[in-house]
């Protein structure tokens, strides 16, 4: 289990990186390496070129500006986990991060790498979907952003061109007092989830739901925003019954089955975990007139 031969490039700037990516045939980008390296070791991928993004400065940052949070693609999961800004302003991401792999993998793994690997059960794409993040992309042709809703093209494949690099993501954090919960079921702590649910609720002074977001992972080919459930919550009082109805609707999601878990079980879990996530989010939310 050793990596196949390739030529290694470690550009020092984004310009250099996009230039390489535009010119090299069969190139793979190497970010934190926690997904690509196992696939190289197992020779599931055999690139002619590996472009290492780790020496590029300016792609690892967490900052808030103009009421938005901007995160560089090469930001390590660990740095997000320990970020006060993330803890205060985006508790959903913090709770999700604690369930991403293990200490050793979070030390290396990046948010950009996780988004691009796009495992259907990965936590950070679910979070990005719930937050309606914009994904920033660069190529020699310039930069563009695309909404997370459009980012997954199909199974484990983002909707970006072969010459494009994800450089970061940005999102508007939910207002002060919102309730967030990330609940997943993994066979063992640190494993990829079988199913995960990200839930966000914003309550008004009367305890009615001003805004809701539900993202499901581990069911479809990528993270699923579950608008049917969100519609059941919108404007309703955040009672157990309301939340239960929304959670139960998640059992209607189209799910894939595999050797690890059947489609039925994944749908069942979506309902159970959505209920837990919505209740936790509701209990954590403050009523803000």
């Amino acid at each position, binding site marked *: *289990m050793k990596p*196949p031969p390739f030529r290694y490039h470690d550009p020092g700037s984004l310009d250099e990186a996009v230039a390489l990516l535009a010119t090299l045939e069969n190139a793979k980008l190497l970010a934190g390496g926690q997904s690509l390296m196992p696939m190289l070791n197992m020779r599931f991928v055999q690139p002619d070129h590996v472009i290492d993004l780790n020496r590029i400065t300016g792609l690892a940052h967490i900052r808030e500006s103009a009421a938005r949070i901007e995160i560089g693609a090469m930001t390590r999961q660990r740095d997000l986990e320990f970020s006060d800004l993330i803890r205060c302003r985006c508790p959903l991401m913090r709770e999700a991060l604690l369930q991403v792999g293990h200490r050793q993998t979070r030390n290396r793994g990046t948010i950009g790498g996780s988004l691009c690997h796009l495992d259907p059960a990965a936590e950070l794409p679910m979070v990005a979907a719930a937050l309606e993040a914009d994904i920033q992309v660069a190529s020699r042709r310039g930069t563009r952003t695309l909404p997370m809703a459009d980012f997954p093209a199909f199974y484990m494949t983002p909707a970006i061109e072969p010459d494009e690099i994800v450089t970061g993501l940005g999102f508007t954090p939910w207002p002060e007092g919102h309730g967030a919960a990330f609940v997943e079921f993994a*066979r063992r702590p640190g494993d990829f989830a079988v199913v995960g649910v990200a839930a966000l609720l914003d309550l008004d002074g009367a305890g009615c739901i001003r805004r809701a977001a539900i993202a499901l992972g581990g069911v479809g080919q990528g993270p699923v925003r579950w608008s049917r459930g969100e519609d059941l919550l919108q404007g309703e009082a955040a009672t157990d019954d309301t939340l239960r109805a929304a959670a139960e609707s998640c059992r209607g999601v189209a799910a894939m089955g595999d*050797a690890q878990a059947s489609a*039925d079980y994944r749908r069942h879990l979506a309902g*159970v975990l959505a209920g837990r996530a919505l209740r936790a989010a509701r209990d954590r939310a403050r009523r803000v007139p």
Partner: protein
Amino acid sequence: MSEGLIGRRLPRLEDPALLTGRGRFVDDIHIPGTLEAAFVRSPHPHARITRVDATAARRHPGVHAVYAYADLAPHLTANLIPADNRHLAFEANSRPPVLPVDEVCFVGEAVAIVVADSRYVAEDALALVEVDYDPVPGVSDCRAALAPGAPLAHLGAADNVVKTFQTAFGDCDAAFAGAPHVATISLKQHRGSAHSIEGRGVLARPDPVEDRLTVWSSTQGSHRVRNTLVELLRLDEDRVRVIVPDVGGAFGAKHIVYPEEVIVALAARLLGRPVKWIEDRREHFLAAVQERDQYWELEVAADRDGRLRGIRGRMIHDQGAYTLLGMNVPLNASLAMPGPYLLPAYQLDVTVVATNRVGVIPVRGAGYPEGVFAMERVMDSLARDLGLDRAEVRRRNLIPPERIPFDLPLKSRDGTVTRYDSGDFPLCQAKALAAADYAGFPARQETARAEGRYRGIGLANAVKITGRGPFETAIVRIGPSGKVTVHTGAMPMGQGTVTSFAQICADVLGLAPEDVTVVAGDTATVSLGIGGFGSRQTVNAGSSLLLAAREVRAKALAVGALVLEAAAEDLELRGGAVWIKGTDRQLPFAEIARALGGGVGYARPKDVSPGLEATGNFMPPDVTYGNACHVVEVEVDVGTGAVQILRYVVVNDSGKLINPMIVEGQIIGGVAHGIGNALFEWMGYDEGGQPLTTNFGEYLLPTAPVVPEIEIHHVVTPSTVNPLGVKGVGEAGVIPAAAAIIAAVENALEPFGVTLAEAPISPGRLVELMAAGRS
């Protein structure tokens, strides 16, 4: 005499090196000029090989050789790995070939070896070896393999039945006739792998000057490897030395000799250079042995009070593609079933079936977990059907201590009667129930249920054969340096053997354990060796060592008495010398060794044999049986099906304990393995035999957060068949674990009408069963 070293929790002598990165595992051995190997392996469960063309691979820069069957055949005396276990002999064609001639029978079967400058280059060249496969239908499920018209696991075989046999005693017809209670029970147990964290590995170094071959292998049996190489490569015993370096766990997967060991050794001879092959994890998934796929269909007859009258039925055992160790696993499973219970009549018809999966030999437990699972499921079904408490049903059936030694009317593998030499099974169960507060459980269960939480408790008893002989040599040798060395054919692979043996030897010779050097796993130092399996080493080699150390002690005392002019009873051994008690007069071992080594001018008694050394070859008159009772309390998340183990109590009887810390470590590790077998480890295959779980992301080993603290209590009934009074403990922990855990989960889900008849059980399966139970 005793310095009181037996029974003490002494820190292990092995640890300092292992803790500082100075362990020496096979891949840590660097010999200049070593080439590295990788294997071309079949991607098909079953295929004809029509052509192997290595031309392109051989031309690849850095590749030194590619050998397939045709290249190696002229150098082999036979193309079959020799049969190791001649009991219940099996069909010749189910022994694995060294390399397949024209047919592969499981995914991962080695087809050719590539030897290159590095493993990296060797793997590059694998893709260049052109093998034309003509896939033919394979068979994966052992029940399907018995259906008329099923694909054949081996082309040209008449059918997929490797062997049928019956394990039986008593009169089952009489037991069932007029039985007030008769029930049927169907059970399924699934395969897992050993997954020592170090895979297999072998390094072979030819010495053309002396025409010798030195082989380092991560194996459970140095002499077994040596003997196989001698036989297949037509070498003299003294030309082949097999050394077992530090072994990073084994658990059965390193018990047999594999084709890879023969091929690498031969490649090294052909190339005249050292060749190393290190099994990677994917290879371990594909090509290292596995165990536990069995289907049991049982009928049980009992009295209304739950006392067993008889059990009869059929077991189908998946043997995989090859039979590497006779019928060892299915036979053990059938022998294990009666366990600690009074079973008047028993008849199990076993069908051993060939499939296109990797071959089966013991993985920690060797059939015992399966047999125990079957019996314990029977006990729980009796309790349920008869409205009795599960512990009470067991208590009524346990063999009472006054009937020990107890002869089970079963012939064991070596044809002797099965005799439980010692043990107190009701005491163990009672202690376990008390420790786990079994009596208080209904209240805990009720409280939890009131909060919407589902708790369950389960228990299981097991008896395990240990200490199988016929012997294991131990030599104690003290040379002119005065240093004490123990040589043995026993094989450490993590069990603290070095420390336990040093304790035994030092205890007799009045030394500190660190004064004793234990050399194990080197065919150059001991002529005979059997190896590490079946919980046998402390019983056999430990007893041999005790006898040898006593003989050395006697020799030292005899010389001491002569030289110091004192009576033997006035002498003591202390700090590497013989002392006259209460004086400062002493004679160092070094001096005695020189005297007995023939040193000129030294005084020595006439009736003492040469050398301050002795060889022990204790031959146990019989095997010895350990036993255990496990009680487990779990909580099931009925939303997700997740099982959390809240409490795990073990009461274990392994006879006398040399080092309780080490014994407990063995038990805890075994329990963790059993947790895997019960809840996590599922080696998936599709219908044709293609493996579905070939990495650690798909095949789940128990991790620290899912393994609870294990609480251990000892009952000590010394074995009566060896001088140490010990019983083996290497497998003790795993054997009842899955049975107890599954029982606890079933108990938790009683309100859902769930009964469990399989292991492992996944959360998804539990959710499915709860849904079915509700409807």
